[in-house]
């Protein structure tokens, strides 16, 4: 199952670990132990599977994208439809699992951080479903950008706490959630939303998200009789990417591709490309690749999509990229926007801006692979939450072709 390679648990090569205040270490040890016990307990697995089926709507389809396939003129394109999971993104797979784990541990309340708001909504949803109080930390800038999701969280009964510090985005929300956790660690579970953070989070989140890739395995066998030739996913912290890619790590014939936020461009310092341009460092409790200056100060990331606006990345992805198992590319804000319209108009799916980054690199990958090959794009979420951001820019004439 896992690819932790070094003797130390929670390490992916040099990456991972548990760089947190001592106050949190006992809680992380407790979580590690509780998770190991839950994983070994068939009743827990059954419970998670049942909720995913009855409530989340799994399995999600693997849909053929006929018109994109034709337009791109290369590999057959398939979409793994996490946008069809309840709450509209893959994030729910992890929050259901973690909230059930928290209940098992007897925790009384849940805190979380969120960027795009999808993880916040998914956490609020799981908390509403199981009757736990929920507090979500969100950068003040993201509160503005993702107003719809802020409303959804509040409607679900969660308290949204805007964070006015630093860049007022995901990184600062995560700092604040960690500080809160330090003071309430006895009875509170912190649901981290990406495959990042201190051990055991990267492992827990990856395991709960790996359902995506496991389904792709069975579905691709059923639909085209073999494994895909390549899988592509966007990368913020990396949870949807590791979720869809992890079950294929041992299948060397399957190309694993991640797409990071190129923002305004890699040469502008306004991007979120930590796997592409990051250096080794410690952020939010794990050692990974981070965007930082020569003094070790973390740089602010930028992306048009709040979910990719993060200067760090999960340690397992850092390891996969460093060892060459995974390819990494970037797409700029403009390319993502363009892809958003292309996918909306040719497939009848409004993809999330995060997901649009994966689509933006899909065309060239489909052509590289060529006809007769199969390309899976992980459709990590739907774009409803982003329509205000996108509409504010107006539909570019180049896309409408003068139609309105």
């Amino acid at each position, binding site marked *: 199952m896992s690819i932790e390679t070094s003797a130390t648990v929670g390490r992916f090569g040099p990456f991972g670990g548990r*760089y947190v*205040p001592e106050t949190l*270490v*006992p809680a992380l040890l407790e979580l590690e132990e509780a998770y190991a016990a839950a994983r070994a307990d068939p009743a827990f697995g059954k419970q998670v599977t049942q909720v995913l089926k009855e409530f989340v709507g799994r399995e999600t389809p693997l849909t053929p994208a006929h018109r994109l396939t034709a337009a791109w003129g290369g590999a057959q394109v398939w979409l793994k439809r996490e946008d069809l999971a309840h709450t509209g993104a893959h994030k729910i797979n992890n929050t259901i699992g973690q909230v059930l784990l928290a209940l098992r541990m007897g925790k009384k309340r849940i805190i979380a951080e969120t960027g795009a708001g999808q993880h916040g909504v998914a956490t609020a949803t799981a908390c509403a479903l199981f009757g736990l109080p929920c507090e979500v930390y969100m950068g003040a800038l993201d509160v503005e950008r993702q107003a719809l999701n802020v409303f959804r969280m509040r409607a679900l009964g969660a308290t949204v706490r805007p964070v006015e510090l630093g860049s007022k985005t995901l990184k600062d929300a995560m700092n604040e959630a960690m500080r809160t956790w330090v*003071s309430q660690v006895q009875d509170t579970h912190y649901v981290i939303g990406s495959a990042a953070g201190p051990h055991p989070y990267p492992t827990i989140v990856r395991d709960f998200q790996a359902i995506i890739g496991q389904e792709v395995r069975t579905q691709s066998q059923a639909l085209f009789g073999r494994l895909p030739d390549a899988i592509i996913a966007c990368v913020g912290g990396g949870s949807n990417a590791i979720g869809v890619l992890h079950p294929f790590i041992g299948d060397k014939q399957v190309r694993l591709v991640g797409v990071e936020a190129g923002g305004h461009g890699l040469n502008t310092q306004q991007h979120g490309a930590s796997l592409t341009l990051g250096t080794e*460092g410690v952020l*939010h409790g794990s050692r990974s690749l981070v965007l930082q200056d020569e003094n070790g100060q973390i740089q602010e990331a930028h992306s048009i999509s709040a979910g990719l606006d993060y200067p760090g990345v999960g340690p397992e992805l850092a390891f996969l990229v460093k060892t060459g198992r995974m390819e990494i590319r970037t797409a700029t804000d403009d390319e993502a926007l363009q892809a958003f319209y292309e996918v909306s108009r040719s497939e009848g799916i409004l993809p999330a801006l995060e997901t649009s980054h994966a689509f933006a690199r899909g065309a060239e990958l489909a052509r590289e692979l060529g006809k007769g090959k199969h390309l899976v794009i992980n459709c990590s979420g739907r774009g409803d939450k982003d329509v205000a951001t996108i509409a504010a820019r107006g539909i570019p004439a180049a896309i409408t072709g003068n139609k309105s």
Partner: protein
Amino acid sequence: MSGEIAAAFAKAKARGEGALVAYAMAGDPDLPRSVDVFAAMVEGGADILEIGVAFSDPIADGPVIQEASERALKAGASLKRVLNEVVPEVRKRCPETPLVVMTYINVVMALGEEKYAKLAREKGISGTILPDLPPEESVGIRAAFDAVGLDLIPLCAPTTPPARAEAIARDARGFVYCVSVAGVTGMRAELPVDLSSRLELVKRASPVPITAGFGISTAEQARAIGAHADGVVVGSALVRAAHADGPAAARQLCAEIKRGLKR
């Protein structure tokens, strides 16, 4: 081991006092004026100076120190500049006082752990506190520090189980920093009731002095803790005093806390 830290605790003890470890942020409000704050704290009676080096994402800190970090970063207080520009000036003005750096692991990693250890020792630093580096992650860096005689000062939290607390204490360098509250740095009106028994446990296991810190801002609190520990660490209260009213306010607060530490 540096030896200077042990000597400072012993000197305070010989005078019948608990030791005061006084924290300020290097570079707040700018590099030269932070030197004045450190010097003033020693005039007020601080026995050891804790020199904060700012990090952009200080997860162990509350609002007072977070804001000080932001001011220090704006003033350009990188680890290199603190070691090259602040520390030598503080050394000059307070030649008798051991200096300890407090920062986050990423800041040290960026400079290089061994390079930092060497440079810090050269500049007269006796120890280092890294609040996001628990014992499991500190083996390598501690070896690098030990090699040059720079103490890696460990932290112990209220949530740390007794056996783990004893293990941390037994293996400590410099002094043991017992975090008094489960939370981030910042002043607290009340300290936990079981703090004294926790301090006694750590003290029994530790070959080096022990201090309590986080939340302490008054002479009264210092007196209560001084009965069970060799000293106290005061941070946010001093940072706030210096930010609001300048070095003299920090001097005065140090003097007041020292009165609480008289045995």
